[in-house]
Structures are given as structure tokens and as C-alpha cells.
């Protein structure tokens, strides 16, 4: 082919650099194709070889993750992971970040993030039944935070509500390290027939490749490259065209796709996400060992005069690429027209294993298809382990205030207060299956008419990951496992979203490697394989990285939703049992950070064997119907967990003083891992204690439910109503600009 086409800029070192390709990467392209690439080809390489699509910094480390179990149908590598939940049913799920776009335009960035992950799930043939989201914002006092919270939450809701999927859970946190780099991680969960899962690999030569959905515009050109670039103070100037989400179009796309899948029309299907047409077409061909010949003149466009380069890199939303059975083409087209969607044959599969792009009579690209993906650079980036921090001793930490005052302060703090202001903007009841709404440990979503249900959660504690990546990685997985267990679910599998800073810095790469090792160990020990995930690197502003934030999305199964547990105290005079070992670990606790002003020390270690033993015992008690309320302990420790149970049930508790061997503030606010609180009616108490003893699970009765306050022996009682007022008011007040 001619290497310079009409109106195409010449390839200069500046142009190469502007595409985020390093000189040695460009050399690799020259070696691979044996000539200078065309402008369109350069664009294609930049899209395929950027961090976001190629995983070039993370790939070698991801290979070690545990991804297998008898119930895993599809692990990482497809649009989403798939697990078997019995009865011929499968659950399809994945989490993905939309961090940079959400910082630039919070509403549309978050909205299109949700749209993208929903598409990943229904591309595989599943009807989405739930969404979750994990959001990290800068410090509350940062001037942009309020605007970002408001836009992101409205955007997550705006898309999911209109699309018609309940958003049932998530996480929200504030920390100054996210000031210039917020995180928006969206997770979608869908339900499919286990024998009707659809994949991306094309098969058959000379099969028509069909473009479906919305038209292509100039949105987000270079979006994928941007998702892998650091920000600086000039990023406002580098704005690409923002992608705008159209949840209405996506809802039509969902219904149309499910309809043609049910009619048996589809051979292969791939949604157009990051790097749009380029990525989706290359993947379909490469996975199927086929070439792809695209004719861009057939692509439905929104704007006049779009170049091949623009069409190949556009990230317009709500689009799909499919290979259809030729004999079903007309039937499929009729279905798409009925739903008012564009339908065009834009190419064919070929035996050549080349990726050929034609436009206006010219060949704009002619590249080896396998190499585009497989030969992407892979980096063994240098990494250094984070220095180990000292273990703090509770006795060396002075309590700044009495326990009751501390509890009142913490429960109304940005870190621990209620997220109601957020989730009330999400339709969390649509579908009529949300058995447990947001506000509990894991959301519980009934499957069709039951009795099965899914337990869903997203967790990570970034301050632990920063202090000790390995323990932090373990803890994120353990907490997700614990939250599922606390509602009575059997944890089945994980999707992860690994958000880190600049991998070219050895300390950051060290965090990444450390967290991944921890995640891996925990997933193995807890039989909790990873089936899908996403990596977001370069989350960094002016050289300062975010806290390492590997969000863990967990999915568990409940055999009978009527037996799920909730955290609310149910009745007066029930025994409150603390399960698990309490040492009083204050290092990296919320108490130490927010009340003592010290972000210090080693985080609490996770003993994975104990974790499993304790969790299995708790799940057994839930199934046995002997516990009336269950809650796991996490941020804020014992006192905060008790307060959450009391507020949810509007019943107080009478509690013993801290045991003599533990400093009171460490007992009440320490964040030792692997712990749960349960309440037990008298009739079952003896049985429960005997059983726990038999399986060597530490347990201690710490008080009884009752009254309208949390009354700790020797402390000022704290009224549940007062706790609730503080718990519920911080976020709405903050968003209203009060206080």
C-alpha cells in the first residue's frame, strides 16, 4: 500500500509521541510491518498498544491470579466473567473504571462508565439484573469535590435508572489523595442460561460483520489513550470530545441483542468500548484466527466528513459489532429496525489474518491482525516493595476523648456516615427482586422468582493497601468474602478493578505487585476465583499517585433468599456475640486517622485460615436459623458495627466494659480482621456457643440488645436516635453546602 495518503499528516516523532507511543514502541511497529505506518495505522497501534487496551505493564502480573474453580464457566479474557449457579443458570459480571473521563465531565463520564459495563454484560447474552459502584473522591474540603460527587452520582443514577437496572450497592470514600484523580468503578451483574453464553471470537470465512446500535461521531477520540495518561494542570486544554451516554439507545440495544440471540442469529458479538471499532474488530478476528476486512464507507456516521482515522478511534457509545449467521441476516435486521437502531454490514471475515481498513476507495490500513494484540509490548517494570511500617501498640496511643464521644464523632464522619444521599438517587428497587437494599453488608438480589438469590458487594480499604500492599490486597478480598458471608451467601467469584498510580515509578509498581500477591493468596485460600477485571494505571496528578485502590467486586449465592441475614437488631434481650479474635489493632484505623490525626502504622493482618473458619461458622449459623442479626466488622471496629446494627433496628444495647487486658479505645475502635457480630435469641444461645467452641472459633458475649441507647458499662450512654441523626446528616449537609 502507499504509505502516505491524501490529506494525511506525515508521521513525525512528535506525532508518534502525541499518540502515547515511546520511540522503542514505534521501532517495534516498524519492525513488525516493515514500513512506515499510515496515519490511520498509527492511530490503530496507539489504541491497541496503550496501557488501557494492552495491559502492557500489568499483564505478566495478572497471569498469576487464580481464575479457576469447578463453577467458573468463563474466566478473564472475555467481555465479562461467567459462573455457574446451578439449575442451568449462569451469572455474568465485571467491573470497570471510568476515572479520567469522570474527572473531566463527572455526569457523562460516570454515565458512560455504567453504560460500558452494562454492555460488557449483555454482550455475553445476559440480562443485567444489578449494578454496583465504587467511588473515590478527594477530600471534602477540596474545592472540586462537591461538584464531582454531585455529577458522578447523578450520572451513575441517570444511566442505570433510565436503562432500568437496580443499582444495589457500592462504596464511597473521600481522601485528599484522590483530589485530582477521582475513581469511578462500575460493576454490572447479569443473568443468562448457562448454555447460551455468547463470545467474541468470529468463526467462518467470508462471514458478514455487522455494525449495530448508534451512529459513529467524533466522541472520545483518543479516549483510550487519555485513560492511560497522567493529568497535570493543563489537562483542561487537552480535552477530547466528551462522550455522551444515551441510556435510551442502550436499552433498545439490550432488548434487540437479547432478541436476536434468542432467535439464534448470532455467531460472535463484541461491544465497542475503549478504542471502539478498532479494538472490537481486531478482537473478533484475532480470537477467531481470522482476518477482517472493514469498509468504512458503510459505517453509519453522525457527522459529515469523518476520516478513517476518526472512525477507527471514535468511542461513540451504544454500539456493537457482530458476526451473524448469513441465513439469519434478514431476520436480525428486521429486529434491529423494529427497535429503531442502525444496522449495517461493514465488513467480512477473511482467511488472511490481516486487518484491512478501506475508506473512499483507498486502503487506509493493512496490518497483521494477531500481532496487533499479541505483539503489544509487555513490560517487566521495575518494582520496589513498600517499606514495612511498625506495628503500633494501643497502649502507646492516647485516647483523645471518651469512647462515647468518639463514637458520636465517627458515626457522623465523612468516612463512616450513611451513604443514603447517594443510593437514594439510584433506583435500587426496579425489578422487584432487591431483597436487601443498600445499607447492609451485601445487597441481596433474588433470581427471577427465587428461591435463589445473589449476594453482591464491592470492597477495598485503600489506606491498608498503601501501608502494606500485600496485607491490603488480602484484606480487600477477605472483606468482600466477609460481606457476602454476613448475609448468608456462599462467596463464589470475584471481579477486580485495580486502580493505581504511574507504573513507571518502581514504588507504584511495587504497590501493584504487592496488592496483587495479597489478592491472589486470599482468593486461593478462600476459594474465591477471579473471573474478570480491569486495570487503571496512571491515576496521578502532578506526580502524586492515588492511594492504591484495588476494588474487589464479590458475588455469592444464597440458596433461599428467605434465609438471608440482615444487620438490624431484631428484638430486645438477645445475646450479642463477638466472633473472632480481638487484639485491639489501631494501626491504620479510622479512629487513629480521624480522631488522633495519625495516618500511621501497619494495618491489621488477615489470617486467611481463621477468616475462612469464622466465616464458614457464621454462614452455618445463618443457614441453621439460630442467629437473628449478623454484621461483619470493618472500618471503625466494634463500636461502629454495633451502632450500625442498633440504628438499623432502632433498638439499643447494653454492653460490658472492655476486657481488662485490652485498652478500651482499642477494644471499641480497633480494626482486627475476620470478625462478626451476631445476635442470638436465648433459646439458641447455648447451642451456638457449644458449636463455635467445637469448631475452634473464638466467641465472646459482649452484651444484650435492648433500650434506646448504646450503653457501655462505665461510659455515657449514647442514644440511638442521636447516632442516627449524626449518621444520616453529614452527607446531605455537606452536599447542601452546610457546615
Amino acid at each position, binding site marked *: 500500500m502507499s504509505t502516505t495518503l491524501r490529506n494525511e499528516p506525515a508521521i513525525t516523532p512528535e506525532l508518534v509521541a502525541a499518540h502515547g507511543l515511546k520511540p522503542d514502541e514505534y521501532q517495534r511497529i516498524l519492525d513488525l510491518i516493515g514500513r512506515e505506518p499510515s496515519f490511520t495505522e498509527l492511530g490503530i497501534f496507539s489504541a491497541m498498544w496503550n496501557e488501557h487496551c494492552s495491559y502492557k505493564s500489568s499483564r505478566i502480573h495478572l497471569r498469576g491470579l487464580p481464575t479457576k474453580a469447578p463453577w467458573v464457566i468463563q474466566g478473564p479474557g472475555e467481555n465479562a466473567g461467567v459462573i455457574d449457579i446451578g439449575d442451568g443458570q449462569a451469572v455474568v459480571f465485571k467491573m470497570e473504571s471510568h476515572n479520567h473521563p469522570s474527572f*473531566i465531565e463527572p455526569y457523562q463520564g460516570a454515565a458512560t462508565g455504567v453504560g460500558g459495563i452494562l454492555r460488557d454484560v449483555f454482550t455475553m447474552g445476559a440480562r443485567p439484573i444489578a449494578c454496583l459502584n465504587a467511588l473515590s473522591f478527594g477530600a471534602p474540603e477540596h474545592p472540586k469535590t462537591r461538584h464531582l460527587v454531585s455529577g458522578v452520582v447523578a450520572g451513575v443514577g441517570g444511566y442505570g435508572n433510565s436503562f432500568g437496572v437496580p443499582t444495589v450497592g457500592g462504596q464511597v470514600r473521600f481522601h485528599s489523595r484522590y483530589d485530582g484523580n477521582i475513581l469511578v468503578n462500575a460493576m454490572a451483574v447479569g443473568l443468562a442460561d448457562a448454555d447460551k453464553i455468547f463470545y467474541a471470537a468470529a468463526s467462518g470465512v467470508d462471514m458478514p460483520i455487522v455494525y449495530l446500535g448508534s451512529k459513529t461521531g467524533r466522541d472520545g477520540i483518543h479516549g483510550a489513550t487519555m485513560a492511560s495518561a497522567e493529568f497535570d494542570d493543563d489537562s483542561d486544554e487537552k480535552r477530547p470530545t466528551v462522550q455522551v451516554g*444515551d441510556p*435510551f439507545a442502550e436499552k433498545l440495544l439490550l432488548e434487540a441483542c437479547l432478541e436476536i440471540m434468542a432467535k439464534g442469529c448470532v455467531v460472535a458479538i463484541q461491544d465497542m468500548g475503549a478504542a471502539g471499532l478498532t479494538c472490537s474488530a481486531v478482537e473478533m478476528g484475532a480470537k477467531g484466527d481470522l482476518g477482517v476486512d472493514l469498509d468504512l464507507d458503510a459505517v453509519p456516521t453522525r457527522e459529515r466528513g469523518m476520516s478513517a482515522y476518526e472512525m477507527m478511534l471514535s468511542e461513540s457509545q451504544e454500539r456493537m459489532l457482530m458476526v451473524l449467521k448469513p441465513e439469519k441476516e434478514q431476520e436480525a435486521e428486521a429486529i434491529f429496525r423494529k427497535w429503531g437502531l442502525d444496522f449495517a454490514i461493514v465488513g467480512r471475515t477473511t482467511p488472511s489474518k490481516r486487518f484491512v481498513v478501506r475508506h473512499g476507495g483507498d486502503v487506509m490500513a493493512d496490518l497483521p491482525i494477531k500481532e496487533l494484540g499479541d505483539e503489544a509490548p509487555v513490560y517487566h517494570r521495575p518494582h520496589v516493595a513498600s517499606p514495612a511500617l511498625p506495628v503500633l501498640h494501643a497502649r502507646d496511643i492516647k485516647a483523645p476523648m471518651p469512647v462515647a464521644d468518639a463514637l458520636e464523632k465517627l458515626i457522623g464522619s465523612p468516612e463512616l456516615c450513611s451513604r443514603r444521599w447517594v443510593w437514594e438517587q439510584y433506583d435500587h428497587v426496579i425489578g422487584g427482586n432487591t431483597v436487601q437494599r443498600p445499607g447492609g453488608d451485601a445487597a441481596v438480589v433474588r433470581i427471577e422468582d427465587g428461591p435463589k438469590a445473589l449476594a453482591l458487594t464491592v470492597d477495598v480499604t485503600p489506606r491498608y493497601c498503601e501501608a502494606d500492599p500485600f496485607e491490603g490486597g488480602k484484606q480487600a478480598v477477605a472483606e468482600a468474602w466477609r460481606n457476602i458471608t454476613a448475609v448468608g451467601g456462599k462467596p463464589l467469584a470475584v471481579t477486580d478493578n485495580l486502580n493505581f498510580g504511574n507504573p513507571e515509578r518502581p514504588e507504584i509498581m511495587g504497590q501493584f505487585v504487592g496488592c496483587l500477591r495479597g489478592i491472589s493468596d486470599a482468593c486461593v485460600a478462600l476459594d474465591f476465583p477471579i473471573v474478570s477485571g480491569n486495570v487503571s494505571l496512571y491515576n496521578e496528578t502532578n506526580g502524586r499517585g492515588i492511594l492504591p485502590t484495588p476494588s474487589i467486586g464479590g458475588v455469592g449465592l444464597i440458596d433461599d433468599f428467605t434465609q438471608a441475614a440482615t444487620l438490624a437488631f431484631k428484638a430486645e434481650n438477645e445475646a450479642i456475640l463477638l466472633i473472632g479474635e480481638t487484639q485491639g489493632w489501631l494501626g491504620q484505623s479510622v479512629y487513629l486517622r480521624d480522631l488522633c490525626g495519625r495516618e500511621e502504622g501497619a494495618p491489621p493482618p488477615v489470617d486467611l485460615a481463621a477468616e475462612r473458619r469464622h466465616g464458614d461458622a457464621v454462614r452455618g449459623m445463618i443457614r441453621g436459623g439460630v442467629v437473628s442479626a449478623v454484621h461483619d466488622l470493618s472500618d471503625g471496629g466494634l463500636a461502629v458495627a454495633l451502632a450500625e446494627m442498633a440504628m438499623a433496628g432502632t433498638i439499643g444495647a447494653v454492653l460490658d466494659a472492655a476486657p481488662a487486658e485490652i485498652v478500651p479505645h482499642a477494644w471499641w475502635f480497633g480494626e482486627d480482621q475476620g470478625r462478626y457480630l451476631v445476635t442470638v435469641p436465648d433459646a439458641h444461645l447455648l447451642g451456638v456457643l457449644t458449636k463455635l467452641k467445637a469448631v475452634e472459633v473464638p466467641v465472646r458475649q459482649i452484651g444484650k440488645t435492648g433500650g434506646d441507647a448504646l450503653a457501655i458499662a462505665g461510659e455515657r450512654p449514647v442514644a440511638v436516635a442521636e447516632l442516627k441523626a449524626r449518621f444520616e446528616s453529614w452527607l446531605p449537609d455537606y452536599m447542601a453546602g452546610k457546615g
Partner: protein
Amino acid sequence: MKARVTVTLKSGILDPQGKAIEGALKSLGVDGVASVRQGKVFDIELAGGDRARAEALLKEAADKLLANTVIENYRVEVVG
């Protein structure tokens, strides 16, 4: 004093609303419409009579709240 701030989408930005309206007009039999893009107007009453000050005030209002300048343009007119 009365003023109008008109906010429109920047060109190149997808307008799902406009697209849906286009389709609806077609199915209602209103032919000849090639494209529709939707925007907003804000009719604002201002205290005081200083035109220059009013314009500055409205520009501030548009930047801070009425328009999302990442995807929208705006125009301010003081109408009297």
C-alpha cells in the same frame, strides 16, 4: 432588568434528545426536518439597572451553574 441566557450543546457532542425528537417528528409525519439539537434558555430577572454589571453577573451565573462548559456553549443577552 430582563435577560436571557441561551445554552446550546457544542458541535460534535452527541445530543440523544435531539435524535429522539427527530425520530418522533418523522413518525408524526412532520417531514423535512433534517436535524434537531436541543438547548436551554433561562429567562432571568435582575435587580438593579446597570447593564454592564448585569452582563458580568450573568456570565458568572452561566459559568458557575447554568452551562456545563465542557460540553455546552452559552450566550447572554440583556433584553431590557
